[in-house]
């Protein structure tokens, strides 16, 4: 059986070839100028992010990828790394200038793949803003069999929206 399928393995696309960070940004901000910007949060800013997100912040050092078209800031991409069970995943959360999620995309997933959320489930985040509806008990439907993944992704979405609101005032300038 292995002899039969092994050659196939090298001709078919990868099961889970995640986009790189650059590809994820290109897909959500096509044609935009991307600028990497580091933010060092002050303690009050960190407290604000935590309060808005309702979940912990991993540190004060945050990278934002600002996307501009014609010089105008059209959105920001954040990369959030968090633990799922015992291992990490990293997702890009792209936020529009108006403070709504444009896309959530997995760029690294270290747990077994059966715990990974599929794209149709991830689409629930698109268009969401930072409000009480962004919760698994409200607008976000739970993910059967991958509860911890669903919770981690919901937390990441809230955290990135809170960062956007704190660093860019909700509506990007």
């Amino acid at each position: 059986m292995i002899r039969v399928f092994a050659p196939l393995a090298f001709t078919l696309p990868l099961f889970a070839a995640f986009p790189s960070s650059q590809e994820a940004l290109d897909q959500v901000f096509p044609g935009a100028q991307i600028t990497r910007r580091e933010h060092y949060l002050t303690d009050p800013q960190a407290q604000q992010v935590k309060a808005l997100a309702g979940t912990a912040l991993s540190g004060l050092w945050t990278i934002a990828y600002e996307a501009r078209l014609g010089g105008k800031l059209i959105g920001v991409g954040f990369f959030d790394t968090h633990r799922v069970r015992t291992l990490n995943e990293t997702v890009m959360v792209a936020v529009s200038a108006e403070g709504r999620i444009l896309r959530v995309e997995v760029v690294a997933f270290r747990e077994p793949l059966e715990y990974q959320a599929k794209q149709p489930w991830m689409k629930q985040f698109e268009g969401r803003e930072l409000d009480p509806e962004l919760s698994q008990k409200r607008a976000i439907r739970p993910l059967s069999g991958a509860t911890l993944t669903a919770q981690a992704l919901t937390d990441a979405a809230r955290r990135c929206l809170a960062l956007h609101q704190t660093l860019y005032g909700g509506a990007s300038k």
Partner: protein
Amino acid sequence: MRFTLTTLALVLLAAPAFTQETPAEARLQDLERKIEILSKELETQKTGSILPESGDGAHGGSPAASKVYAIKGGLSIGGYGEFLYQAKEGRRQDGAEGGGTKNLDALRLVLYTGYKFNERIVFNSEVEFEHGGYSDSHPKGEVIVEFAYLDFLLNPSFNVRAGQVLVPMGFINELHEPPAFLGARRPLVERSIIPATWHENGIGIHGDLPGHLSYRTYLLNGLRADEFSAAGIRDGRQAGKEANAQSLAWTGRLDWNPTPGATLGLSFYTGNSNQSGHGEPIRTTLIEAHGEWRWRGLQARGLYAQTRLSAPGVAALNAEDPAREVGTQQWGGYLEVGYDLLQGSRQALIPYARYERLNTQAQVIAAVTPNLANDTMAFTLGVSYKPIPNTALKMDYQKLENKARTGRNQFNLALGFYF
């Protein structure tokens, strides 16, 4: 991370002592450049993904070569456990007093271990200690491999799995971490009709299909009919232990997720359970349908399963063999609903109810009289409290009745966790 950055910055700031001949402006630019390089390096390590090559500028379509599979390989560990207290009432359904029983069990402690050899070949396993594990002085316990397989990941729609696998039927058999289901005890239907946890040796394929569909199908060693009983096919499982594979079986499952939170699915199992290699075949076929709906704190699921065994094969078993009492038709189903009362909180408090009906001897061969105690109804009412999603404390009361009127109600308390 902050400590590392600070240390690196201090080292770099000390550098001017050795490069006094460089103009201050140039040194500052050099330091900024080095800090930016280190910052990107740290970001790459933290996220595990390749970052944009340039700090700014337009990015066109990236070459396919830039695709990376971020998991380089290695060990993955998970697990779950559950402790169960059961207090059965002494009074039977017919009013007879039989004396109550109370039991406190370290029901399960499970370790998942996986290893990713490369991006295409992954090992995954579950080793379970039941009832506190096994020792010579406590032989009721068990240490057992519940699954251990290699996945050959070829394509989202076509992947190969081989080893000891979980039979892909129902809800509980594949997803049985205690916080993932309501009820201190698993549903009776998914114990007696679908004999969870049901795992056998085999090989098969799995994947996702267009239209929000996913499937799994395997060829397995079959059940052993000579271990069947009036209680069902449960004891016929071979669990991968030097499994007799004279007769193979085929199982499969198809799930449809039309929208997040909704699942509709079907599954089946069919095979000859006569493992003697001769004599009348005992065709054993299970079919099952399930549905689940989760929406805003509400979770509801339903399942129906039925089993058919070929009567001539069962009748051909040795006249003294208790396996002849197995139902040639068995069926069961349940409906379950729960609602999370703590809407504004990360904690969960979920009152739930479950109604079950099952009969493991709905039909039997002519020479056997069915035991009416196997025609069962169970109604469960309880509450699950989850301080975090990984842990659950569940408490319920079960009304258990059967046609023989020997049912005894019971109170259950369970503590479960997973990681």
